[in-house]
């Protein structure tokens, strides 16, 4: 090891790079030094004094969280003076603590409780009156209980440094110090809840979870958030088939412990009272609940009738359904219904980029790259609002590695605050602004470029040419909206491309064309709401909708089949960076079925089950791995809860993308298409914000 130092902890000879903190060096060698305020990745605080250790030749105990290891240093972490010190520190920390563990949300997973159990004494010598301050509600999401707070400042640091929001601070001093929100009695922030999760005690509690359960009464399922395209892993706490909590404290997945308000609290659409729990069929002009067998019979009869007379069929897929469902749906449409009229709401131009960079296998960046690469260029996107995890990664990259961040957007964005350079450019004028950064970018050792839906078609080609002309390694992230927007494109939910961007030579109708076609006989919509802001021109078209809620599209349907949400099924999804991850079923809703099963049942009823193959997620994924370009990824990584990136860049795609069909919905932190409309927590946060304006 270059610049490494040798030292001893608890009589063990150890070695670590110079500058490593004692607490980190100990942790890497399996020695735990307790601490509250020290937090990996955040600024040092040295406030809690829990990590005091004995260092030979030092006149008194030292804090392991700010002392770097030195050559020949001899450290003892479990000696009698150290254990004594921990005991006394805990006595101080508990001197104003209400000790209300039996009613506290944190009881059972509380770091203070654990430490008191291990090192504390059963009695306190403090007889002073405890200072009581009533609990405060700062937002629909965040509650603060001052007496429980041990002032470790983790919440303040994660908000200021991690999120770049600066919504929390510490006011007053001494025993009456407390954490305070940025607007006197309330918070105006991202409502991400990072402060709540990072709190080692129960001082900060969440509006959705508080007083609902004890932590040990929940089952935990790690799955992928179904809202935006970033693909964060969220660990759902489930009790009695009800999702009670979302967080990612085990730091599994690409996002570590990061989650935004949607990943942490936006799961509550799942048990919304409006969830469809029975198939509906239009009888005498009204949608009436019927049995699954009856509904399938009606669907199959119509499918066969339209197929028999070679009628016009349109199929609209989803940005939220799994890769398996998307693949199976397009296979059904093309093989059984014999149509290429299949499309989905396209939110970013992936195709042009994949074509433009074909042949260079490292051209697509991962979320990890955003944290590690030396320079980042953001074009036409407000990442903090629309791609929160990508924004977090870039911010962390700047904090930890001093990355150079360049911003070209129409409006001010949060990235401006630490950008090496930021330029304002109207939509359409981005490229010339980017061009003016050429000299600066040329001087960087490497670059990752992220672009939003303002860049499409020819603009993406020009951007790729610009990247190639810089003479440095350049990677790209084509931004898309939803949890499986990328997967929908990869799986061929497009009229002109088969799965894996295989050109078809001929083309079918886009979503807009289907809605405008007056001769459409059958429209099959799976997990999408194309009629939210549009009208269906074909008056006689038979409409089949697979959906969780009675959306605008479902309301005019002839048959509505209740679909399971992403939290109620298995399968894989592909995030904005092409990282494939696995969904795990966490709960279920009575009456609803996963879309894959619904399509499978339709196939079975139509007698085409054999040619369609089994509707089992793992089996379909196996077929995807064998047949779809870029998806021959290591299955072990995915099956064990990790991520593997798909890189479909081997071969040109000789088509012109229809740029007019690409349009991002620009959902912000608090909206999420149909799902957001049915999330009570997201709506209450939105209402609070609107009431303030």
């Amino acid at each position: 090891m270059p610049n490494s130092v040798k030292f001893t902890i608890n009589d063990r000879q150890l070695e670590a790079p110079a500058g490593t903190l004692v607490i980190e060096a100990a942790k890497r060698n399996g020695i735990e030094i307790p601490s509250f305020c020290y937090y990996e990745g955040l600024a040092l605080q040295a406030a809690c004094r829990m990590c005091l250790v004995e260092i030979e030749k030092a006149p008194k105990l030292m804090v392991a969280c700010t002392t770097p290891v030195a050559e020949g240093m001899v450290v003892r972490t479990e000696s009698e003076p150290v254990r004594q010190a921990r005991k006394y520190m805990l006595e101080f920390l508990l001197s104003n603590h209400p000790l209300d563990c039996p009613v506290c949300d944190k009881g059972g997973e509380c770091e203070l409780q654990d430490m008191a159990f291990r090192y504390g004494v059963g009695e306190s010598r403090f007889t002073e009156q405890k200072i009581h301050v009533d609990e405060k509600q700062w937002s629909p999401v965040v509650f603060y209980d001052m007496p429980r707070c041990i002032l470790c400042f983790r919440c303040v640091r994660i908000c200021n440094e991690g999120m770049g929001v600066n919504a929390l601070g510490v006011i007053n001093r001494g025993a009456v110090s407390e954490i305070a929100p940025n607007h006197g009695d309330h918070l105006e922030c991202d409502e991400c809840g990072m402060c709540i999760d990072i709190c080692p005690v129960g001082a900060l509690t969440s509006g959705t979870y508080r007083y609902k359960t004890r932590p040990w009464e929940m089952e935990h399922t790690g799955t992928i958030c179904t809202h935006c395209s970033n693909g964060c892993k969220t660990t759902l706490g489930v009790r009695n088939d009800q999702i009670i909590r979302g967080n990612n404290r085990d730091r599994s997945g690409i996002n570590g412990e990061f989650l935004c308000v949607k990943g942490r609290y936006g799961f509550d659409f799942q048990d919304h009272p409006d969830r469809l729990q029975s198939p509906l069929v239009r009888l005498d002009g009204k949608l009436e609940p019927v049995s699954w067998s009856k509904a399938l019979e009606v669907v199959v009869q119509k499918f066969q009738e339209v197929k028999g007379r070679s009628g016009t069929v349109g199929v609209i897929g989803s940005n939220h359904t799994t890769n398996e469902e998307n693949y199976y749906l397009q296979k059904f449409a093309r093989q059984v219904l014999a149509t290429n009229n299949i499309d989905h709401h396209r939110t970013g131009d992936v195709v042009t980029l994949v074509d433009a960079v074909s042949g260079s296998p490292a051209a697509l960046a991962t979320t990890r790259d955003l944290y590690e690469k030396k320079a980042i260029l953001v074009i036409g996107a407000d990442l903090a609002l629309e791609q929160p995890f990508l924004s977090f990664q870039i911010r962390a990259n700047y904090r930890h590695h001093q990355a150079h961040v360049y911003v070209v957007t129409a409006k001010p964005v949060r990235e401006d605050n630490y950008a090496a350079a930021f330029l304002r450019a109207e939509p359409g004028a981005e490229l010339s602004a980017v061009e003016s950064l050429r000299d600066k970018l040329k001087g960087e050792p490497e670059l990752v470029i992220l672009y939003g839906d303002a860049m499409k078609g020819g603009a993406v080609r020009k951007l790729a040419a610009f990247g190639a002309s810089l003479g440095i390694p350049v990677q790209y992230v084509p931004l898309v909206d939803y949890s499986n927007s990328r997967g929908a494109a990869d799986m061929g939910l497009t009229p002109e491309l088969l799965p894996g961007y295989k050109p078809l030579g001929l083309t079918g109708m886009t979503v807009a064309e289907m809605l405008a076609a007056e001769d459409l006989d059958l429209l099959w919509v799976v997990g999408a709401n194309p009629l939210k802001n549009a009208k269906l021109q074909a008056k006689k078209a038979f409409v089949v909708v697979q959906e969780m809620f009675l959306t605008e599209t479902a309301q005019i349907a002839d048959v509505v089949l209740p679909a399971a949400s992403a939290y109620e099924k298995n399968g894989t999804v592909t995030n904005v960076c092409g990282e494939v991850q696995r969904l795990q079923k966490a709960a279920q809703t009575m009456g609803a079925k996963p879309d894959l099963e619904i399509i499978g049942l339709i196939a079975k009823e139509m007698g085409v089950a054999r040619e369609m193959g089994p509707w089992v997620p793992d089996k379909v994924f196996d077929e995807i791995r064998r047949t779809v370009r870029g998806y021959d990824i290591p299955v072990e990584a995915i099956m064990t809860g990790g991520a593997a990136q798909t890189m479909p860049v081997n071969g040109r795609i000789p088509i012109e993308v229809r740029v007019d069909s690409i349009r991002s919905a620009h959902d912000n932190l608090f909206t999420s298409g149909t799902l957001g409309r049915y999330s009570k927590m997201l709506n209450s946060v939105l209402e609070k914000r609107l009431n303030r304006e």
Partner: protein
Amino acid sequence: MTFSPELEAKFARLLTSYPPGRQRSAMVPMLLYAQDEIGSITQELVEEVARRVGVTPMQVEEVLSYYSMLHRKPLGKYHVQICTNISCLLTGGEQLWQRACGKLGIGHKEATADGQISLEEVECIGACSWAPALQVNYDFHHKVTPEQLDQLLDSLRKTH
């Protein structure tokens, strides 16, 4: 927010008194000078200082609530600070404090109705050798007897 030219000049000097990127160090002196001119620290001032030194209003609030010499509420024209720390306590500081409270009918960090005088019980003001001591705005009064206190308070009242 506009300040007097003298205060603006002080601010300008403060902002260049620290190494580049450390302008936030000017926060406390700016707040103290501005408090002298305005009489207290208003929300408008908090936001203005935050803007000038490049921090959030929350960060100014943190400093403001920490230091007892920064006041949110307006003080009297004469701010009488009576020390009751050890040396003064032993020599009658506590009695001075009680006497002042009784005479003016106000308590700790309160001001008379006409806004002329305000009182504050303070910790050591560094005048132990001349205890009991008190401070009126920036002026010290040493070895204060109860009679001298009465005279002093009367004189402060008279200068209407």
